[in-house]
């Protein structure tokens, strides 16, 4: 602030001038954001590539993420919309903190930064809940030899949990080292029912239909007749419950991979944003920036926080909406 050049030495070579009139720290934050934006663009481009490759069988996100805490009826998009709202709101409190910093209002900066941190924590918590729900799965499905997923619906097209109609229990227990089977250890929980149990239950229940991965011209997934389902179910080789990196009851495992990778990387950004926000928050409380004479650090961490919000806007569109 005191480095303003006098008219006599108003030369670019005299020192004290800033390229583009941007301070060093802010410019470096922008450069970091630019490179990080390119990383996220790469992820979303890879997602687009695989989605276009499997355009006829890709999972429909609204049918996957339908869960809202404390309710049981499927509510597509609402929970993600809530998460988006939380992040946008925390962005607003962040920009209000920056604005209060410009006017050297310490108490307002403290209040708004605190609200921002709380918003970030709610968002990360929501994301953890969504991961948990996705990993746990909701209805279970069968997987065919070629890796296609067969889901079960009733005659109205509502999803049916495989446990609700399967007859009997699987006798298979997990292969573990202490049983002497070290070469084929089960890395994931073994389903409590087998393909035979599900098939038997399906035959006994003529109201059930199979929903395949194929997307019809009207944008919905194909639902086979009971007779066609009976021949389709013969191709099943395994029961899938929930989603992980290898199996996914909602459809393509690639979808789960991208979900974990993109939202995970974004969630990690939110987490690190919270950590940086907390550090800056305590610096504000201690009066560090009051003594320094300006709140530029709040501005810099604000840039990062808005960037996290910006990325979420794109993830929301390309993962959940489109």
């Amino acid at each position, binding site marked *: 602030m005191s480095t303003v050049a006098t008219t006599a030495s108003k030369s670019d070579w005299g020192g004290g001038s800033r390229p583009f009139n941007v301070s060093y720290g802010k410019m470096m934050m922008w450069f970091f954001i630019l490179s990080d934006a390119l990383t996220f*663009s790469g992820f979303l481009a890879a997602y*687009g590539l695989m989605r276009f490759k499997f355009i*006829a069988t890709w999972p429909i996100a609204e049918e996957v993420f339908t869960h809202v805490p404390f309710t049981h009826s499927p509510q597509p998009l609402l929970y993600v919309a809530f998460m988006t709202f939380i992040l946008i709101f925390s962005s*607003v409190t962040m920009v*209000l903190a920056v604005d209060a910093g*410009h*006017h050297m209002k310490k108490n307002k900066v403290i209040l708004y930064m605190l609200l921002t941190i709380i918003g970030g924590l709610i968002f990360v918590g929501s994301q953890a809940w969504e991961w948990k729900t996705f990993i746990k799965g909701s209805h279970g499905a069968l997987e065919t030899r070629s890796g296609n997923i067969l889901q079960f619906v009733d005659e109205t097209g509502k999803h049916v949990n495989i446990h609700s109609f399967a007859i009997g229990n699987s006798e298979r227990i997990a292969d573990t080292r202490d049983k002497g089977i070290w070469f084929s250890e089960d890395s994931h929980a073994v389903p409590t029912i087998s393909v035979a149990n599900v098939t038997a239950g399906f035959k006994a229940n003529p109201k059930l239909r199979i929903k395949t991965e194929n997307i019809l011209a009207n944008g919905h997934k194909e639902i086979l007749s009971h007779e066609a389902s009976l021949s389709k179910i013969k191709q099943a080789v395994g029961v899938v419950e929930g989603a992980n990196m290898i199996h996914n009851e909602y459809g393509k495992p690639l979808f789960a991979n991208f979900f974990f990778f993109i939202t995970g990387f974004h969630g990690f950004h939110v987490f690190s944003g919270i950590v940086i926000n907390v550090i800056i928050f305590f610096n504000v409380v201690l009066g560090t920036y009051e003594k320094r004479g300006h709140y530029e650090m709040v501005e810099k961490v604000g840039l990062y926080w808005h960037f996290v919000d*910006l990325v979420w806007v794109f993830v929301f569109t390309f993962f959940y909406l489109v």
Partner: protein
Amino acid sequence: MSQNSSHTKRIWFVFFLLLVITVIEVFVGIIKPAFLADHSFIGLKLINWFFIILTLVKAYYIVYAFMHMENENSFFRRLMVYSIVFYVSYIMFIFLTEGGYMHDMFIGSDKFYHISKDF
């Protein structure tokens, strides 16, 4: 920066704009109007164009208003915005074109039947 109230006013205006756009997006995403879902333009459904354009509007307001890009030096602004806009448009075009090609290979038209067998 001397007019505090006008700054805060703009922040809240942008907030409500972002909120309204998100609500519209979610609403359209749930009801999926037949007109938007059935027609397409340059290989993309109108509903997807709708979402992408609204997303870009949101991105513009976040970068220009919240990140104060509108107050930066114009050369600096171009350095940041042009870099990402042109590069990402390019890479999206390349990747999505390639993805469409892979899809044709994958389901196998008669011409490429031997290739699709390899997948």
